[in-house]
């Protein structure tokens, strides 16, 4: 009896704790991407009278919406694809004005080049390997003429293709294009659907077990709020762990983020492929190194950061395209703060990546000026 009582006690207390945790995150931002931006930033994905032109991945602000809305637009003949990390959709202190580079560029192109429409894709920490996959994917869906690529040195520390982008690698045309590219081939081999002959996991797709699990998952989420909060709980757990790590090791936004050679090389190889793909398809390209807050010491080893810009400049310009260094174009007062990275004390820290709506205007103005100076859209 003691044993049965222990089991019942464990189950009751655990479920109580689980519900408690679920309630704790009920007020959190609804998805991981927004949560990652912190309380002082908001994710802004503007649209044009309901037509979506700024999207993210296949789950959050799905790419398919932008592709469908582009195709349904009556006067769009060619697309300009603008891709980058969360700087493109993150607005710091949105109460000071909600504006984004993407929105300003879209309006500018709509006004001045009637047959060109902007499509923007931005994902937090998007690395160049992911940018390659998504640029190729969109190019197979809508007629593109131009690419604007924003790639931060930070993102060369990332690698792999995240799950929310993997659907792009199910498209045979994307696979075919990537297979003709040096690094793209490796991406397909590593992340594409495997030939599972001889592997019993090959029948795992959509079998009875999976269908039942999905059904139960949905049903539980319907009547059990804490179950529905699990994604937020997972993310909160990861953030808490991340903050604990930062607290223990004294990591702050100013901590130096060193280059990781292997990842750096993979990302540059992906950029070379992206440029080659653009050339093969007669796409015009602008590549820029994004703005970074200049009134603070940079969180990079300066030599490595400088080498990065030299390397990408060389890759882009060798192919006859244009590279811009926008490092200092957003003044310090238009940047902002982010939640403390190592505690929940409420203290704020410098946000090196996201700026205010006004900062977005500076970036958009600089981009438009650069585009005009090159007669890029002609």
């Amino acid at each position, binding site marked *: 009896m003691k*044993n049965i009582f222990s089991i019942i006690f*464990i*189950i009751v207390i655990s479920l109580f704790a689980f519900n408690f945790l679920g309630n704790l995150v009920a007020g959190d931002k609804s998805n991981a991407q927004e949560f990652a931006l912190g309380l002082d930033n908001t994710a802004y994905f503007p649209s044009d009278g309901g037509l979506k032109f700024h999207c993210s991945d296949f789950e959050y602000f799905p790419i398919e919406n932008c592709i469908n809305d582009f195709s349904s637009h009556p006067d769009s003949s060619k697309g300009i694809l603008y891709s980058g990390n969360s700087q493109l959709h993150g607005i710091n202190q949105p109460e000071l004005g909600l504006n984004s580079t993407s929105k300003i560029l879209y309006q500018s192109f709509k006004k001045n080049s009637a047959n060109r429409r902007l499509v923007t894709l931005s994902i937090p920490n998007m690395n160049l390997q992911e940018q390659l996959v998504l640029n190729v994917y969109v190019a197979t869906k809508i007629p593109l003429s131009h690419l604007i690529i924003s790639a931060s040195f930070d993102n060369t520390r990332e690698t*792999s293709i995240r799950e929310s982008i993997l659907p792009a690698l199910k498209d045979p045309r994307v696979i075919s294009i990537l297979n003709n590219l040096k690094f793209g081939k490796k991406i397909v081999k590593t992340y594409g659907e495997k030939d599972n002959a*001889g592997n019993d*996991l090959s029948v795992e797709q959509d079998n*009875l077990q999976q269908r039942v699990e999905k059904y139960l998952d949905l049903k539980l989420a319907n009547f059990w709020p804490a179950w529905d909060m699990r994604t937020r709980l*997972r993310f909160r757990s990861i953030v808490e762990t991340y903050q604990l790590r930062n607290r223990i090791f004294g990591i702050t936004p100013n901590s130096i983020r060193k280059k990781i050679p292997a990842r750096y090389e*993979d990302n540059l190889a992906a950029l070379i492929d992206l440029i080659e793909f653009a050339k093969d398809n007669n796409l015009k390209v602008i590549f820029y190194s994004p703005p970074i807050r200049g009134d603070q010491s940079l969180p990079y080893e300066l030599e490595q950061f400088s080498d990065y810009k030299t390397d990408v400049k060389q890759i882009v310009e060798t192919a006859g395209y244009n590279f811009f260094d926008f490092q200092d174009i957003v003044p310090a007062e238009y940047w902002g703060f982010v939640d403390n990275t190592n505690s929940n004390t409420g203290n704020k820290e410098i946000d090196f990546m996201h700026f205010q709506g006004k900062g977005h205007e500076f970036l958009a103005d600089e981009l438009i000026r650069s585009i005009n100076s090159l007669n890029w859209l002609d």
Partner: protein
Amino acid sequence: MVFIASLSFYGFWKFNFIPVMLFSVILDYFVALRLEHASCPRKRKKLLFISLFGNLGLLFYFKYLIFFSNNAIGLVNLMGISIDPILFKIILPLGISFYTFQTISYTVDVYRGHIKPEKNFLLYASYVTFFPQLIAGPILRAEEVIHQLSSSLRASSLDFYIGFKRIVYGLFLKVILADNIAPLVDVGFNSSVSQLSAIDVWTLSFLFGFQIYFDFSAYSHIAIGSARMMGIKFPENFNFPYIATSPKDFWKRWHISLSSWIRDYLYLPLTGTIVSNKSSSLGGLEQAVTQEKKNKALFLTWAIMGLWHGASWTFVLWGLYHSAWIFIFRLSNKIKVVNIFLSSKVRGFIITLPIMMLGWIPFRAESLNVTFSMWSKVIDFSAYGFLSMRENAYLVAAMLLAGFIVTSFISSKSDYFLSAQPKLFRVLEITFFCLIIPFILIFLRPISQFIYFQF
């Protein structure tokens, strides 16, 4: 009832493969019955051959046909005759490597006279298909389980409590630990080897070593726990393998049911040991074995053990790697100086653990080429000067190692603590489970799959 439940469980994954499993079950049921009445050694051998041919034939077709065909074609191509590789697909039935081994051991045990054949078909079939262990073991012996299944399944409240704890602990290992280490391992092994440093290779081998340990032992915990909740006791399958003091000791602690299966049904026969009825004076083992035979058997057994894990040369290499180290330790045991200067614990943590961890590289790497490249990094001193992975990977590997050492220490003292302070132990145990269950619920995702399901 158990048999129907087991078939339903299996059909839940894929109904079409139930007949394949039933073929193996029925074949050995009848072979074993015939063996009981066959007194002529030639006839007995013939019956044993039928069982081995049937079961290994199934395994060969589903698991190895493409591998051997493509290797044969590769050889022919090397000779200048061009033939395209075979492109047909064969889906490997879930758990086939495990249930065929169980049916083989059953027939061999009957053949050796260790056990009497089970006449009740449903009882025997329940033993082979018993759902808690059907997919990934432990590989059960008939003598361990059939007598338990023959009495009505009745679990005491203690069985129920122990079973519950084992299942929850297994879920903790799988959902919280193994599944969260997996992305770090995947990213590392997807990198180009040329970009990895020696420290990266060490880190990846430790990370994967922990991932596969948590993943596989989790399944065993869940299997043992599920059975226990029905009043059935399974043998343990893991016993802190990473504190082993030698490779041989490691294999007495890792996937114990497979190691002992391989020893009894493959290694000993290959050494020439005649394994007869247990009542014999040598406890079932007869005939002196020469060292040369033992060594040959060692390498052959391990190559086969590697192939059992997967139809790939990397698995064969993995097996040979282990046999080579067991062989080296066998030799070193004869050198007294080694034993005097190195205590068993030192040999364990300083020598055996790194060797075992590096041994996981061929298990996870996609080719022999990648395996050798990664191994060569470890002995290249110039490759120790840089790091190629995110800082978190090193941190997690270090924490896991520290955590493992602490846990194994606590575990070694738990029996004493349990008898000295049973109430406090109970409170701590309940607190631990109350803390981990919410996190299991949070991190439980349908996508995660047990690594050993593919074997």
